[in-house]
């Protein structure tokens, strides 16, 4: 592995790594049973040159912003490296957002160059707010022959025209602007510096070093902080290989483990749960004697790995289970949302190590990660090297807000000094999450102080961002809340959103209103939907500028209504 201390920027570190690992396998991209491409680090470098040259020809300068809007594929990483090579700032956009949301964030980011997959670009050009943005250069991948490009340039038409100068950046310069949320209301563009990423990478690879021969399966979106680090920067600096799948269906993911002898993968709790369900189904299909034998082996493995993991023993004991994961899986990382301890325990008992971590976009990738010494499924592990973590204003159970300080904390939110000052106070980033440190220094999470939820897919949902979906509802006013914000409880499982409806005076919530609200709800992506409504008879407290005082309203509701008052929507 190259020594990241020697480098000032992600571009510099990646450039050195690509040269150092020239002959190692770098990327494999597969689509169903087909393998689209396989590149060594040298070939990756060669594939980057036309893109670097194009950026140069565009006059793309140091510190300029360029966005990527693609599903996981080799060209995502090629475009990202080209942007860093030219000293640019990368804006990774979530391909699962709606085109209107993507336009909002593109506009907010100030990016004038966009790399996008053809179908995502086409969707953006049809978005109602497309006229809000001016893009100078758009490069599209996967465009069909004769496809309407709407002013974009085909990736395949880019030409390599010789050497292009590397543009250096300093550690304190912005490397990426990553949106944690805020499409409907207040965009939260986290400015993450080169120092943030290089320090994060050093901390993670110290705990979980990659090496040539590691094959990392990239299934979380690369725009997601976890995959950006663990499926791009980390593997590259260590000479590991990254495997991309163009379709993320569970059956192809399962096949990929075997076909590419995957050693590492990062998942969100939803995917982990799906893998668990698949294994349960397979176990249920076993004959009674085989099922009995399996249970005995699991029990034996549990006893042998109580104090620390013994991967070789576990693999030998539970060979068939491990074969289903390709037989060479060394570990999975799970993060982005709350993972049930029972799920972590299920995998650990099978000898499959799932490292549970905790972090937020504002700190890049992770703040804590489990170390299995011993296995503690009720915690998210210890703070990573270099992360200072404290619990402030603890209650009688020692539970308080998690605050952190260190090299990985972002520089701030783009164009929002007020929010930055609210979030980072005296150098400490206030996460809004409630936690407790146990006697060994491991963090346990218990809920949130903020009005938000995180889905099992790792998506942050802020209630104010989805309120515009209910505009036009025949009520006097309405407001969306996280149920756990209205009625705090010390757990993170099953977070839900609720809508509070205040009818016109003297009226009640009619069936027609509920039907309309339900229809609006259905038009939202499934993960953003509200699960119930509350009827509220008093005017919402508001500021002088007529904004709802959400904290005051929440307190009023809390004092008068319970969860039982919720009706399903």
């Amino acid at each position, binding site marked *: 592995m190259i020594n990241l201390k020697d480098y000032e920027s992600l571009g510099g570190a990646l450039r050195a790594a690509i040269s150092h690992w020239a002959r190692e396998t770098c990327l494999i991209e597969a689509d169903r049973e087909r393998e689209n491409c396989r590149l060594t680090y040298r070939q990756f470098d060669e594939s980057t040159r036309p893109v670097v040259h194009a950026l140069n020809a565009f006059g793309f300068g140091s510190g300029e912003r360029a966005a990527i809007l693609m599903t996981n594929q080799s060209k995502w990483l090629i475009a990202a490296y080209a942007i860093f090579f030219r000293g640019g700032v990368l804006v990774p956009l979530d391909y699962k957002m709606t085109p209107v949301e993507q336009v909002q964030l593109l506009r907010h980011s100030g990016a004038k160059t966009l790399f996008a997959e053809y179908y995502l670009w086409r969707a953006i050009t049809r978005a109602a707010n497309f006229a809000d943005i001016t893009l100078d250069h758009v490069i599209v991948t996967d465009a069909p022959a004769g496809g309407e490009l709407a002013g974009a340039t085909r990736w395949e038409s880019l030409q390599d025209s010789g050497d292009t100068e590397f543009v250096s950046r300093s550690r304190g310069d912005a490397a990426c602007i990553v949106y944690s949320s805020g499409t409907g209301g207040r965009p939260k563009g986290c400015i993450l510096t080169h120092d943030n990423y290089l320090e994060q990478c050093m901390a993670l690879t110290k705990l979980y070093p990659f090496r040539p021969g590691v094959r990392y399966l990239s299934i979380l979106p690369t725009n997601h902080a976890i995959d950006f680090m663990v499926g791009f920067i980390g593997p590259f600096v260590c000479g590991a290989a990254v495997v991309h799948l163009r379709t993320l269906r569970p059956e192809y993911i399962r096949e990929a483990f075997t076909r590419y002898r995957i050693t590492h993968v990062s998942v969100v709790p*939803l*995917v982990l749960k*799906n893998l668990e369900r698949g294994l349960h189904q397979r176990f249920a299909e076993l004959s009674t004697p085989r099922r009995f034998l399996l249970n005995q082996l699991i029990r034996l493995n549990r006893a042998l790995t109580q104090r620390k993991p013994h991967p070789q023993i576990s693999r030998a004991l539970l060979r068939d289970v491990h074969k289903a994961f390709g037989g060479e899986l060394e570990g999975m990382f799970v993060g982005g949302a709350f993972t049930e301890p029972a799920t972590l325990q299920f995998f650990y008992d099978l000898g499959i190590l799932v490292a549970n971590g905790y972090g937020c976009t504002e700190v890049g990738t992770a703040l804590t990660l489990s170390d299995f010494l011993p296995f503690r499924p009720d915690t998210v592990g210890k703070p990573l090297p270099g992360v200072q973590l404290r619990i402030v204003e603890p209650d009688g159970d020692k539970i308080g807000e998690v605050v952190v300080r260190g090299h990985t904390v972002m520089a701030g939110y783009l164009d929002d000094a007020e929010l930055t000052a609210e979030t980072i106070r005296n150098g400490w980033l206030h996460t809004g999450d409630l936690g407790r440190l146990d006697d060994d220094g491991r963090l346990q999470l218990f809920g949130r102080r903020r009005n938000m939820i995180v889905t*099992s*897919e790792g998506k942050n949902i802020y209630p104010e961002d989805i309120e515009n979906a209910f505009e036009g509802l025949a009520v006097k006013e309405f407001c969306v809340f996280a149920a756990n914000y209205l009625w705090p409880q010390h757990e993170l499982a099953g977070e839900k959103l609720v809508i509070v409806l205040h009818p016109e005076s003297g009226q009640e919530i009619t069936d027609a209103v509920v039907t309309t609200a339900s229809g609006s709800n259905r038009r939202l992506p499934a993960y953003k939907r509200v699960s119930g409504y509350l009827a509220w008879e008093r005017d919402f407290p508001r500021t002088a500028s007529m904004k709802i005082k959400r904290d005051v309203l929440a307190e009023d509701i809390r004092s008068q209504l319970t969860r039982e008052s919720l009706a399903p929507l």
Partner: protein
Amino acid sequence: MRTLAQTTDEILTLAAQQFKVARETLSPNDDFFKTLGIDSLQALSLLTRLENHFHVELPDYELQDVSDFGTLAGRIQARL
């Protein structure tokens, strides 16, 4: 060539088989996440079954903003 109604009907039958629910409980306007009680990954699994049945290739993004059988049927019909 199938009609859209036939395609929709076949999708409902395949979904009922895959998620072990009675065919008559499903209708084209149903939100399949809600009716079948499935998550986004399980919905993607259904897509593979539909690909094999209709002999078409459906990119994952075809399901991105779809939550009812009728719209899904329309997307498949366009590729037949």
